[in-house]
């Protein structure tokens, strides 16, 4: 089981000061939520953690090895990411899209085998997409498309899951289903990190939180220590009312 850690990491956002370097580790079984207002750098952080963007300084390590020393393909077998948006310029079916999650595991001259197809089918089943398997991506709703991206990541089945707003476009039931899927992966021993805009989903399902402020300031720690109304109000510049429901805090914006 592998840990992803940020070591004195400053993400590269043009025109912004260094802020506070990030020093945290996503250990197996942990579910990290990243909270912050629009433009705080959540997506840039996710891309940096996935090795898709170079940091301004510091480094990201997977099981102690800096990402810059790993080959792309080897990295893709261990770490996967769901992006906030997709570029569907060419026609493709839902099933084909789930199946590309197996790409890092198949040699160039090999075809997808029965085991790869079985994994893709299971992922489609798990995300409630079986009935859409033959559909073109262009005919899907936003929420359905988002679930296809998650099915691709589930087919890839890495040890580290990064998800940039995985509940984007999803209805309430599927939001819960996705949080349960991520929780289940963490219970299997994966490390999970996701950007969220919904404080209440974060409060219910995340074990740890990272708060990113627009000026580059940040704080992180166990979820119950981070869900302090003062800190959250400062984060979003929005007054909040707090209530306890089912043993978890619920945050509602004040009018």
């Amino acid at each position: 089981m592998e840990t992803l850690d940020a070591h004195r990491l400053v993400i590269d956002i043009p025109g912004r000061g260094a802020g506070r370097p990030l020093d945290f580790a996503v250990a197996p079984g942990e579910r990290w939520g990243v909270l912050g207002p629009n433009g705080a750098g959540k997506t840039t952080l996710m891309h940096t953690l996935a090795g898709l963007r170079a940091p301004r300084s510091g480094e990201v390590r997977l099981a102690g090895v800096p990402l810059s020393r790993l080959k792309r393909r080897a990295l893709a077998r261990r770490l996967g990411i769901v992006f906030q948006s997709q570029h569907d310029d060419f026609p493709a079916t839902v099933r084909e899209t789930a199946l590309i999650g197996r790409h890092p595991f198949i040699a160039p001259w090999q075809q997808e085998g029965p085991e790869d197809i079985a994994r893709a089918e299971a992922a489609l089943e798990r995300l409630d997409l079986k009935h859409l398997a033959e559909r073109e991506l262009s005919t899907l709703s936003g929420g359905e498309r988002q679930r296809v991206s998650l099915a691709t990541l589930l087919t890839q089945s890495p040890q580290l899951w990064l998800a940039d707003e995985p509940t984007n476009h999803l209805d309430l039931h599927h939001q819960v289903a996705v949080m349960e899927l991520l929780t289940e992966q963490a219970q299997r021993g994966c490390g999970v990190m996701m950007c969220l805009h919904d404080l209440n989903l974060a409060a219910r399902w995340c074990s740890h939180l990272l708060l990113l402020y627009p000026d580059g300031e940040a704080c992180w720690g166990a979820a119950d220590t981070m869900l302090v109304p003062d800190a959250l109000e400062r984060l979003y510049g929005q007054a909040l009312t707090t209530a306890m429901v089912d043993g978890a805090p619920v945050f509602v914006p004040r009018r």
Partner: protein
Amino acid sequence: MSDASAQPVGRGLRLRPLGLLALAALLSLAVSLALGSVAIGPDELLAVLAGGGDALHQTLVLELRLPRALAAFGTGALLALAGALMQILLRNPLADPYVLGLSGGASVAALAAMLAGLGVALVTGAAFAGALASTLIVFGLAHGTGSWTPTRLLLTGVVMAAGWGALISFLLAVSPVERLPGMLYWLMGDMAYAGSPWPVLGVAVVSLLVVMPLGRTLNVLARGGLQAAALGVAVRPLEWTLYLLASLLTAVAVTTAGSVGFVGLMVPHMLRLRLGNDQRLILPASLLAGGTLLTLADTLARTLIAPQQLPVGVITALLGVPSFLYLLYRSR
């Protein structure tokens, strides 16, 4: 997983369309050998190909029609393959082999050579040099001081193409009238000066062998650079390979037959409408369908108003445009 065997990912499902396209390719070559100033029946054609038959027919088929048909097939195959690769590189289904200004560079150099009164071999050499020069200029400029994105590459190429277009008009305007027909034929694409078919056919076969192992990786690249990188694709080296390969294929095709239009844009696009977007199928299918289309078009070009010949590019456009529009209209 009883239904897994029915998924469109197995090798078997790719063989049927490829088999049909290969059959169509053979038929197109046969038609091209049979038709012309002297029509040759199927029995006689087989006899000639087997080494027998009438001596006149032998000369007609083996020395005149066969080299030209094979050159047309190879040129069409290269253009369609280059178009399919360019579309993936630019993540744009509307890209064609000439979109980055490559044919413009080749045309300016070839027309300049014609204007200088140089022979066929030098015109051909100039076209190849012009195509490569245009490739390097566009690539260098798109690279610029930062990173290049598909959009930046596309814009650079389109603007370069416009520049070449102006130079072509200039060269035509200052050329003596008696040279104009040759120049116009070259600009529209013409198989009459194709010469030996083996360079184009050889390049087509070798490039297919190069790209086939990349098929699944190209499928992933079509989903966007970030997604491909996240799935373990070394995006930048792959994009370099695609760019250089597509440019080389186009340069060889343009050198052989001038700038034949529409094949590179339409063939891959039409195939995608029918067969989906698995490059392991689309790339070899483009090669076969592109070759077939240009072979048939060239046969029409030299028989339609015989003994006069038409530039083949006119025929590809006249055949291609309506069939493309029909497929687009019928598609979901």
